[in-house]
């Protein structure tokens, strides 16, 4: 409502008075306004932890009036859908919603994610019927008053439901009430109104719709000192990590654990690729704890991935029935429960709490006080150039006779390049950065399938052995199950061959001149001086027996394949050991969110 309009007196009576005083105009006459009973209502907004509905232009509300509940979804071009919500409690996965159109609509955007209650509003609602000279209802109004909304006169908003076939009456009532200063929302404006309402309710609750904890800070500029910028980025990753912990512990959906691991992976990669601008001892301590967290979460994630993939794999069986794989699913589920308990214990441990507190303190200090001589823009250009070179050179050497090992290693280098491009995204040219990421992804996809299908073949063979060993001779694993698993291995082998055959063309596309232009644009010449550590360390002391001197290369994981390149430490794989759930989401990948996979 714009300023300068008269403020109407509160309530239903005011609405009546305004409408009855309007007289006849344009052949439209209002003879009476009948009021119905007053109802109390409560509305809760729901979304996944990563705003999947919001990102798809949807708003989901739980409306409660008295004892009954209704779920209503608005937006994304298809108007409004609703269904009863009796007996549904949140958080809740898609499968827990009542079957029907509304559930079908949410299934694709939500995929595996649970719906969480985000914020709610409550108030009263009064129905009014506007009658014409035949005393027929020609417009329906609902006066909704929101409690504790800072609405001074408590006058609320009027929802106007047009009665079909009476558009002139609706226009007239809307105009009359608006002229008197009422906030009239026409229910037909289905797209704009509820989405704007959801947005403002969420903001009022202190939420930032659509923003993820791991999204990079908007304050970073190319001339920000490198250490500050890197600390800010790592803080965002730590936010992401922390945000995923409660959902992981409560096991709301498998994506919380995935998010947690993405945060760990991104943090480790950032330390490996740009950690040299931060205090060495703190980096060393954080890297150790992040490695621990990676290892702690790997077994459960592996089981999740197998369980999630199983239905899809089962549909590919031709010689055997999907049901033949049931014993495998049961085996995985049993193990999952045990691994989950171990993970929860770890996330509740003093060690985890201490890591988060200390790492956060270091990052905040550097972000506030850092004064690294190099600007982050220069650092970015330098790191992109190196990472690109480390990917392209060995890539060119790969031939049809190269061993799988070379392809696996190239995938790791590709991941490093991807991480660098994401890490420094705030200071890189958006167009070139995006284009290069897209081209890189095309190569990484085939390398991913090549490696993942190999890993899965090994895993299934390994699982078969474990099942045989665990079941013993009293309850032997059904032969059908083992044979079906064998068939799966065959399919996976075919996937791997297909990916191998596709690699050459994809890589050639990546090194063609048009793509090289993006690299050149992203890497203007720089003169990087050796980093100077400006922040004295206070909290994290080096572990006993390890002396770390300024400027030392800090191994992030393992020792064997650490390569030091002029102060940049690049471990063989800052991500995860091969085959340890290093894959990105198997189902319903987070749209547009730069998950580092």
């Amino acid at each position, binding site marked *: 409502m714009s300023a300068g309009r008269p403020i109407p007196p509160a309530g239903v009576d005011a609405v009546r008075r305004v409408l009855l005083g309007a007289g006849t105009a344009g052949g439209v006459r209002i003879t009476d306004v009948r009021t119905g009973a007053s109802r109390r209502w409560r509305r809760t907004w729901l979304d996944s932890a990563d705003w999947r509905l919001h990102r798809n232009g949807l708003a989901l509300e739980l409306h409660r009036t008295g004892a009954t509940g209704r779920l209503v979804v608005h937006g994304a071009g298809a108007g409004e859908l609703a269904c009863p919500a009796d007996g549904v409690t949140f958080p809740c996965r898609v499968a827990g919603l009542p079957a029907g159109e509304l559930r079908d609509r949410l299934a694709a955007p939500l995929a595996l994610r649970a719906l969480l209650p985000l914020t709610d509003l409550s108030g009263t609602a009064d129905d009014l*019927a506007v009658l014409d000279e*035949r005393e027929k209802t020609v417009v329906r109004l609902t006066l909704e008053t929101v409690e504790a909304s800072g609405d001074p006169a408590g006058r609320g908003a009027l929802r106007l439901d047009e009665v*079909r076939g009476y558009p002139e009456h609706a226009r007239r009532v809307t105009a009359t009430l608006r002229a008197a200063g009422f906030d009239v929302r026409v229910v037909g404006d289905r797209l704009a109104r509820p989405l704007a309402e959801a947005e403002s309710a969420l903001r009022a609750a202190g939420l930032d719709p659509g923003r993820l904890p791991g999204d990079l800070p908007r304050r970073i500029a190319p001339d920000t000192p490198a250490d500050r910028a890197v600390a800010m980025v790592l803080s965002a990753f730590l936010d992401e990590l922390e945000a995923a912990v409660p959902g992981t512990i409560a096991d709301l959906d498998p994506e919380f654990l995935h998010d947690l691991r993405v945060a760990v992976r991104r943090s480790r990669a950032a330390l490996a690729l740009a950690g040299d601008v931060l205090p060495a001892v703190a980096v060393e301590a954080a890297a150790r704890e992040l490695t621990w967290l990676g290892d702690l979460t790997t077994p459960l994630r592996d089981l999740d991935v197998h369980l999630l993939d199983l239905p899809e794999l089962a549909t590919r069986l031709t010689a055997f029935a999907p049901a033949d794989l049931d014993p495998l699913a049961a085996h995985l589920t049993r193990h999952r429960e045990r691994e989950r308990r171990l993970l929860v214990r770890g996330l509740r441990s003093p060690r985890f709490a201490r890591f988060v507190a200390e790492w956060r303190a270091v990052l905040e200090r550097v972000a506030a006080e850092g004064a690294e001589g190099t600007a982050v823009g220069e650092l970015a250009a330098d790191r992109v150039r190196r990472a690109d070179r480390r990917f392209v050179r060995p890539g060119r050497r790969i031939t049809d006779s190269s061993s799988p090992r070379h392809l696996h290693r190239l995938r790791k280098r590709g991941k490093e390049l991807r991480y660098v491009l994401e890490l420094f995204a705030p200071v890189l040219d958006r167009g070139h950065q995006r284009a290069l990421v897209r081209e890189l992804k095309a190569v990484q996809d085939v390398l991913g399938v090549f490696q993942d299908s190999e890993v899965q073949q090994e895993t299934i063979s390994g699982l078969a052995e474990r099942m045989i060993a665990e079941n013993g001779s009293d309850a032997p694993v059904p032969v059908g199950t083992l044979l079906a698993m064998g068939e799966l291995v065959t399919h996976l082998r075919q996937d791997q061959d297909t990916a191998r055959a596709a690699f050459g063309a994809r890589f050639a596309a990546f090194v063609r001149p048009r793509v090289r232009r993006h690299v050149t644009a992203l890497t203007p010449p720089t003169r990087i001086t050796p980093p100077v550590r400006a922040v004295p360390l206070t909290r994290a002391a080096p572990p006993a027996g390890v002396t770390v001197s300024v400027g030392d290369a800090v191994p992030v994981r393992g020792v064997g394949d650490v390569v030091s390149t002029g102060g940049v430490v690049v471990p063989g794989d800052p991500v995860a050991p091969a085959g340890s759930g290093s894959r990105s989401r198997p189902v319903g990948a987070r749209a547009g969110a730069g998950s580092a996979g």
Partner: protein
Amino acid sequence: MKVVATYAIKGGVGKTTAAVNLAALAAADGLRTVLWDLDPQGSATFLFRVRPRVRGGARGLVRGRRPLDEAVKGTDVIGLDLVPADFRYRTLDLELDAMRKPTRALRRLVEPLADEYDLVVLDCPPSVSLVSESVVHAADLLLVPLIPATMATRSLDQLVEFLDALGAGGHDGAAVRRPEVLAFLSMVDRRKRLHRELAETLPKELDTISEVVIPALSVVERMADERSPVTVFAPRSPATAAYTRLWTEVACRLGLLEAR
């Protein structure tokens, strides 16, 4: 989308009353429902306080110049819309006759509503005519009120004969779809022995006659004063109970609701 038509060769037997109440019950069950008042006298239209006028009249509709959905009006019953009667429907027969395939006309007009509605209820005028042929062809179910009388089943027999004849070829020679027929005893007066007996025996004799009986009740007559379906203004009355049973049977036959 399913189409139900209340239909009888005789007048004043309770067609409109049944059409209005069943439509209101369907809407209350969450079905998107539209009632088309085909009777130029417009009793249903009057009941819903809607002006009995359709822009373009019968000619505009039949010639397809005005799509049916432009004529639709929302009623005071949430979920129930109405296509009002128009005095000019008197000429509907003539208009239909002028067309190439008159029998199919009504069905063609109703079909575009399928996206918007789950149920169409046609309230027909009392006569056997071209409109009726067209109604028969459009309907999935004919709902036939019968007044308990010794000759009551005779009019049902006549109807069945008429339907059989249409199956062989209607007015324009083309075969007409054969809708399901459900008759029910209407305005049954429990104080009359004949009514009691016929209500008892007829449903057993003919399986096209429903077990559900609509009693004669003064609360039903009040609909004209209340200008509302009895199911809305007297939800706990025996009349509402009887129409609810009838609606359940209709809905089950049409597969609109799971058996309750």
